[in-house]
């Protein structure tokens, strides 16, 4: 990790010295021991601030829409897939983007860490080959990294950046034996009533803070349909029906675009199982249109095109 941080700093400094970028988006050490925060580097000296560790969870691609000038950006596998989406959706020109790809071993899930630490105060954290060491007053605990990974990292099949200009370190081995839709298949096997109950129970927690939308790299519309008051598409209450329609719509809007970076799940203060919806839509788009988001720059977004022989079994007659 130290080695990768050093390499990132060097590469970014060089980019500024060669005047190839106006801005680099990366991560710096956060104010808490196991948090890294997004960092905007504007000159060669500031490149010193950049770090790389297992807490660089944010999907930095979320900052790209609306950015001007030449942008350098640190990208994990999922982030690079979001960037592919942005380029395809004309949010940024490929030539204005310098992608500094970093192969990823998965990022720590704060909620899992909280559960293991159970209220004790962490003062320091160290990454060792056999696990993550949490240190605090009167305790030191080593936890294997796999116990601390969020669901989307466990089932991730694109740990290496799919698109990059500079690669930091070496590519890691991809997860081959993951069944990323395993949970969805379990849900699908349940009865309609059971699924409805689960959906209602999960969405019943929603406080309509829209953190999921704001954190999502794909939700960049200037005006979101949920904010519109004329026409008012969505009731503004936390009535179950309003929240459910909002979540169905949110999942639908990321159909064929979502790369399962987990930003919405991390942002949700109520711990709603948002992947219940996102992954289902991802699975359907894969089955129906044979499309995987954020892989190929030349393939148009699936809901913006069609084929005459698209599946139509659901249509009468």
């Amino acid at each position, binding site marked *: 990790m130290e080695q990768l941080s050093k390499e990132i700093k060097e590469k970014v400094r060089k980019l500024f010295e060669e005047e190839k970028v106006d801005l680099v988006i990366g991560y710096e050490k956060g104010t808490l021991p196991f948090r890294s925060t997004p960092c905007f580097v504007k000159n060669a000296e500031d490149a010193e601030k950049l770090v790389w560790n297992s807490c660089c969870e944010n999907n930095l691609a979320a900052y790209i829409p609306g950015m001007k000038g030449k942008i350098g950006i640190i990208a994990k596998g999922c982030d690079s897939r979001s960037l592919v989406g942005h380029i395809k959706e004309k949010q940024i020109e490929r030539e204005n983007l310098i992608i500094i790809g970093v192969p990823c071993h998965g990022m720590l899930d704060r909620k899992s860490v909280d559960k293991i630490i159970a209220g004790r105060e962490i003062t320091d954290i160290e990454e060792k080959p056999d696990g993550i060491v949490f240190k605090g007053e009167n305790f030191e605990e080593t936890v294997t990294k796999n116990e601390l990974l969020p669901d989307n990292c466990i089932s991730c099949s694109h740990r290496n950046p799919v698109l990059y200009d500079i690669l930091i370190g070496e590519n890691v081995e991809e997860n081959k034996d993951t069944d990323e839709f395993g949970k969805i298949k379990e*849900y*699908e096997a349940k009865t*309609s*009533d059971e*699924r*409805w*109950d689960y*959906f*209602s129970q999960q969405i019943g927690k929603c406080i309509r803070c829209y953190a999921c939308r704001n954190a999502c790299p794909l939700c960049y519309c200037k005006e979101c*349909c949920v904010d519109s008051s004329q026409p008012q*598409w969505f*009731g503004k209450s936390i*009535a179950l*029906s*309003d929240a*459910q*329609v909002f979540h*169905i*719509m949110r*999942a*639908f809007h990321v*159909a064929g675009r979502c790369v399962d970076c987990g930003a919405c799940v991390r942002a949700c203060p109520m711990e709603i199982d948002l992947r219940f*919806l996102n992954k*289902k*839509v991802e699975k*359907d*788009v894969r089955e*129906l*249109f044979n499309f995987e988001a954020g892989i190929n720059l030349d393939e148009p977004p*699936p*809901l*913006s095109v*069609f*084929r*005459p022989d*698209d*599946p*139509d079994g*659901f*249509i*009468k*007659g």
Partner: protein
Amino acid sequence: MEEGKESSGSNWEPKLITFLCNWCSYAGADLAGVSRIQYPANTRTIRVPCSGRVNILYILRALQHGVDGVLVSGCHPGDCHYLSGNFSARRKFAVLSRLLEYVGVEKGRVQFSWVSAAEAGRFAEVITEVTEDVKKLGPAKRLVKNSD
């Protein structure tokens, strides 16, 4: 909608919203009318320029407001007045219909069909079938606002 809900006993009749495209299905419905073909009067028609014009929020809003069934009907593939509106619609609806069923909205509550301007008999058949399907499902409860 309130009246329909109250009489949800044996005399209950479902209320359907049908979104019909101006060029095919709406004309088909019109032909069914002038040909005096009988079909259930449970449906309320909303004319749209094209099935591609149907935002999925229209469907969700209709369900929220308590309709018992939604039907979207457009031109047959290849016959769209705007050439490809119904093809684009088909992709959207394919994703939506799976998603709705997945979250627990009963299969058959939201349906799709292609009906051309000449298919008056077909239109009557579709409306009859959808009405029967929704009758079997009973009054809508899921996604309806202010219901328990």
